[in-house]
């Protein structure tokens, strides 16, 4: 069992386990922490895929900012164990689970069916030197995808303003008590 395959299985296990925790555990705080764990796992997976920069960004953005936001909000709300964490109704629940299962089956089936045909041929090529990889990435980002980049910048600006406005609004959606 070679190094990288071991790494992969290990990380996959951690990621999926923490993801399951996110979904199943009833205390939102814990699920937030599990989410952070998942993010770390995902970034590690990025590392195994040779996307070092993305791994770092993943940590900074998701683990460092987004999930921290979640945690802070949860702590502000001071939510303890919630009694009805999952939506009521056996029928709808079963339907939902069945749908999810069907989707999973379809996706995995599709992947296996499609990729296994050339799995032998397309095994992982040698990882590019990370510096070169990053140069390539940034070059593509600022030449080929510069428009999307700008648009995203504008989007972020708008969202910053909107979020500030939302947070400023007294009493949320219904201003008058």
């Amino acid at each position, binding site marked *: 069992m070679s190094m990288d395959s071991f790494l992969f299985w290990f990380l*996959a296990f951690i990621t999926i386990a923490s993801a399951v925790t996110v979904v199943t555990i009833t205390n939102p705080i814990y699920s937030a922490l599990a989410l952070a764990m998942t993010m770390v796992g995902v970034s590690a997976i990025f590392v195994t895929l040779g996307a070092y920069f993305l791994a770092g960004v993943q940590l900074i953005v998701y683990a460092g900012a987004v999930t921290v936001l979640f945690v802070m909000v949860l702590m502000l709300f001071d939510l303890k164990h919630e009694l009805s964490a999952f939506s009521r109704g056996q029928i709808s629940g079963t339907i*939902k689970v069945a749908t999810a299962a069907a989707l999973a089956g379809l996706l*995995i089936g599709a992947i296996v069916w499609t*990729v296994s045909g050339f799995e032998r*041929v397309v095994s992982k090529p040698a990882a590019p030197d990370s510096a070169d990889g990053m140069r390539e990435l940034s070059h593509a980002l600022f030449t080929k995808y510069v428009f999307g980049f700008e648009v995203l910048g504008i989007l972020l600006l708008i969202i910053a303003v909107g*979020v500030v406005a939302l947070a400023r609004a007294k009493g949320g959606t219904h201003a008058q008590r």
Partner: protein
Amino acid sequence: MPNVDTSLAAEALARPETQTQIESLDLIAHSATLGVGLSHYLILSAILFVLGMIGVLMRRNAIVMLMSIELMLNAVNISFVAFSRFQNLIDGQIMVFFVMTIAAAEAAVGLAILVAIFKRFREVNIRFFEHLRG
């Protein structure tokens, strides 16, 4: 769908670094039992995605639903990166970049809305928001 894999295989064959690997096919065949390939990553991302979907469908806590959405996005990111790696195209990573931005924005807005609603109703249970139905 035979057409897909033939095409992918064709362009895989077209690439030099895969040519070399075909020559040493038997070696790969040995390690293929344990070797980690594209499909592994894709399946991992599929599982993550479905988990996130279950969370969105089943959980009542709006914040947890947001988290599950983040899960789904991450699953997508994984498959993007995997593809970009296994086809030596940087574009996938760019897409991940954008997805991350969007995800951060979405989380920020969602949480802001939740805070606003919580300030009013002291409640983040999704069932409760049906009262907001127009």
